[in-house]
């Protein structure tokens, strides 16, 4: 089959512009999702049922329904209810953050609960408070175990961000859909987009691998 490089070259500036928005949306969603996930994760681990039940429900909802539908609900329901009109970029960041928080919450929980109980007992026998135990004994060890899982989650989030083309947020997938429409060709736009996604996710993996080796160990 004949592959038309010329139309990729034609659309490259728009694809790169879209990739910039993909990076922006993903980066914000990673940060917001990780912060929110921390709150949700600790909420779920809480021994108080009025905290743990809603947080558990939150995780079940966002992990148990399609992101596709979540994006539509946020775009046409949540965002207009808050700011009075739709806004695709705000909806994209919100939906991806809320979704990612459910997954990162479980990563926090798994990481913390993977630390042997003996560590807590030892810390308490030294007279540490619950907060001190968490801050100085559990978290430093747990975070190291969480890094690979976080890396995985962030890579998934970058790829999932392609779904927001659904609500016409002008990111990478959106512009490749536009390209598809003009020429009615499928492979050139999709493979070009896939290649750019690969560059993004590969760079992120490398960055996280470096962090895992160096940053967190210190």
């Amino acid at each position, binding site marked *: 089959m004949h592959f038309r490089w010329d139309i990729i070259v034609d659309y490259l500036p728009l694809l790169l512009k879209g990739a910039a928005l993909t990076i922006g949306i993903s980066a914000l969603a990673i940060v917001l999702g990780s912060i929110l996930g921390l709150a949700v994760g600790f909420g779920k681990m809480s021994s108080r049922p009025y905290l743990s039940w809603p947080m558990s429900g939150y995780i079940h909802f966002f992990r148990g329904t399609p992101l596709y539908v979540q994006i539509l609900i946020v775009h*046409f329901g949540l965002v*207009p209810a808050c700011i*009075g009109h739709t806004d695709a970029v705000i909806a994209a960041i919100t939906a991806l953050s809320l979704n990612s928080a459910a997954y990162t919450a479980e990563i926090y929980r798994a990481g913390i609960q993977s630390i042997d109980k003996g560590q807590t007992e030892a810390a308490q026998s030294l007279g540490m408070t619950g907060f001190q135990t968490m801050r100085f004994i559990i978290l430093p060890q747990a975070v190291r175990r969480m890094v690979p899982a976080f890396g995985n989650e962030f890579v998934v989030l970058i790829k999932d961000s392609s779904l927001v083309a*659904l609500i016409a947020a002008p990111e990478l997938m*959106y512009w490749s*859909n536009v390209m*598809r429409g003009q*020429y*009615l060709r*499928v492979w050139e736009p999709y493979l070009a987009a896939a290649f750019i996604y690969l560059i993004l996710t590969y760079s992120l993996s490398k960055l996280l691998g470096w962090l895992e080796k160096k940053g967190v160990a210190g």
Partner: protein
Amino acid sequence: MGKRLSVIVAAGILIMTMAACGANKEDSSGGDGNSGKVYKFATDAAYAPMEYMDKDKITGFDADFLKAVMDEAGLKYTITNTGWDSMLTEVQSGSTYDAGISSVSITPEREESYDYSIPYFESTNMIMVKEDSTIASAADLKGKKVAVQGSTTADTLMSGIMGSDNTDLKRFDSNAVAMLELDSGGVDAVVADIAIVREYMKNNPERKLKGILDTASFGSEFYGILLPTGSELKAKLDPAIKKVLENGKYTEIYKQWFGEEPNVDNVLNAK
């Protein structure tokens, strides 16, 4: 135990995959008898009233029209809802499907990659706005936020008016979502095929919408049946389409779906 188990699991998956592939191969070699080839048409049946699913059946103007044409040509055919992307790749390669019929407008860029039948349908784009809107023509859309379905000629036209990299022009995957965006106040107008806009207003009278025709800015466009380059089917389809257009069968189907007379001469004389 762990190692042995993983070997067994891997072997199991491998065997099942091979079995599945084998089954597929047998399936496809089953029906290539030379007597009376069955032509396979692909469509994206999500564009009421042109082509859509009525429960599990493909229906709409295109489905009825295709039936008339294939009856006229004396050819057997099947039509499958493949979705838009699959329809494009399949028709371009031409190995599994022989043609696509899905309200595909004929444009020069697309003719670089496909062949088309002769035109069979005249369409124009319509602007849909809320009843109290001040927008009255295509020129009024400049500086406004407009939603279209991507890959449609509405997209091409509005890209021309507003600039293709203008982010106030929002391209959605389907007209249904684009129209929802108008309801939610995210855009000021939707531009789409006249048949689609009318169908939507008919089904949603409580939304208080109006349609605006601007034939000066939005000229006629014509749909064709999508074919692989160099398709032998074109020589059989074109005379049959011409016949169906001329003998009144087309007018009958058109009236049934749209409740008005088509301008058959425009379609016949289109180039």
